[in-house]
């Protein structure tokens, strides 16, 4: 008998996410992985600033909420003090690739034995749809009203490609949650990223291309297409490093 149901680590609490938002799927995958690996009681998560700031309302494990972009530094502090614990950060694109770029790169380069879940939806969700570091060329946001690329905004930052050059990194994979197949693959990657930490292998990051219907001003179904047709060509899925 196969059963598909909410894994225990996820609280009964309804999320504050908008309809069709990919965070809910990413949360479920992380939660299932933690439960399946049996590590809930030794897991410490970090909540970012951004849409996932209330992560601790949904995960039944120890969580610390960090300043914007600082999760990798906070996670470093926790993991170094308690190396036997499983420490993960859950960060959005603004948090990880704009304000927290330095913390991300250096935690990665030091080879901190932590797991980073990086949700990339190419936009600032919580603040109302401004340009993210991963906003694509031509993409309209509230601060790139004629599409990114017109006024010295630069192209999107590709985090997996960027980090793949760093010696301290163990594992990088870009996944998506826009089709059932992608979701299953994302879960496999997330599980590997946690397993790497359990095995003491070092810095693992899984990027998750995710939907933001509200700020993309698309329906949930159109948002799925947006990830599949617009984002995947710019952010190719796959393993960028696996040591």
């Amino acid at each position: 008998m196969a059963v598909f149901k909410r894994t225990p680590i996820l609280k009964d609490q309804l999320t504050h996410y908008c309809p069709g938002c990919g965070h809910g799927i990413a949360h479920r995958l992380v939660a299932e992985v933690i439960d399946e690996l049996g590590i809930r009681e030794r897991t410490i998560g970090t909540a970012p600033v951004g849409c996932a700031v209330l992560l601790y309302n949904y995960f039944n494990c120890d969580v610390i909420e960090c300043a914007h972009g600082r999760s990798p530094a906070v996670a470093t502090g926790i993991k170094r003090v308690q190396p036997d614990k499983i420490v993960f950060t859950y960060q959005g694109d603004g948090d990880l690739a704009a304000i927290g770029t330095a913390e991300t790169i250096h935690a990665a380069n030091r080879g901190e034995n932590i797991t980073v879940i990086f949700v990339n939806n190419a936009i600032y969700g919580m603040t109302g749809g401004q340009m993210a570091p991963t906003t694509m060329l031509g993409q309209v946001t509230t601060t790139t009203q004629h599409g990114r690329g017109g006024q010295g905004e630069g192209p999107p930052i590709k985090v997996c490609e960027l980090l793949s050059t760093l010696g301290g990194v163990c594992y990088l994979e870009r996944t998506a949650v826009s089709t059932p197949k992608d979701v299953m693959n994302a879960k496999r990657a997330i599980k590997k990223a946690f397993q790497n930490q359990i095995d003491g292998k070092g810095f693992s990051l899984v990027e998750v291309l995710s939907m933001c219907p509200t700020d993309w001003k698309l329906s949930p179904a159109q948002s799925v297409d947006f990830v599949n047709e617009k984002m995947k060509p710019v952010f190719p899925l796959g393993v960028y490093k696996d040591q």
Partner: protein
Amino acid sequence: MAEAAIQAGCRFFAGYPITPQNEVPEYMSWRMPQAGGVFIQAESEVAAINMIFGASAAGARCMTSSSSPGISLKQEGISYIAAAELPCVIANMQRGGPGLGNIRASQGDYFQAVKSGGHGDYHLIVVAPATLQELYTLTMNAFDWADYYRNPVMILGDGILGQMAEPVEILPYQPILEIPEKDYILTGCRGRLSRVIKTLILDPADGLVRHNEHLQEKYKRIESEISLCEEYQTADAELVVTGFGVTGRIAKAAVRKARKKGLAVGWIRPITLWPFPKQAYQEAVRAASKMLVVEMNHGQMIEDVKLATECAVPTEFMGKGGGWYPDEKSILDKIESMIKQPAAAAKGRVS
């Protein structure tokens, strides 16, 4: 200071190089691993203070040190740590400012230290040692206060204190407070409910108002329980001279000389800058008719002196920023010029 931290059980240090405090991370880099602790040279001051945030949340006695521009960078993290009520020790060996300033000693960060340098209503416990022996002792005490009150403690030194050499007796750590078990730290939720450390409080029922009230109550308690200063011959003093840190120390030498000359001069030096030893100041000026505040800035602590004494006596200022420091003779000259003035006239000029 670094050895005192180790002696007091500090087992996590994160910092970023900046003059004039590089001796601290350099010492920690080899000594901390020896003591079984963690040393990290962070990528920035911002990262360093956030590593402290994490290490403290994980239950370690932890410390970071920096100098003025670096402390400015840390303010974001300090505000979060104060809001989350996590203990840590932060050292600031002040240098000349504003901006990149210079690497000479200064006391220009007084306001930043005692008036909550980051955003929001909070206080650090701030101590200002004047000698290396005092720095050693206060560093050990700082860890106790931090844990006991669940509050960041700042050691406010300066470039002179950070770079000078003088004999220090390496005393074993003696706790000054009984620290309750840390029932708030994150260790994984084995055998207990999961815990959250957060500073975002959206509770519609005035949750953040209540959290602020809670913090203020704690600050009131700290104010009533900690207040340290050193005094010298204030009982019969006509003029009371004051200054903090090394400035206080230099001023004391001048006051001693003035006493030898038969001048009725007293001296007081705050050891805790927050809480400011208000009562001691009120008592110190009871017999006096004027005060002199000496600082290596353009007049910061003088505001707290005036508040503490409610401007009971005319209070003059001597000081400059940017790397200037007072010598004994110039303070003595100032004392002599003030004491020759009739007190009543001086009083009239101020009021």
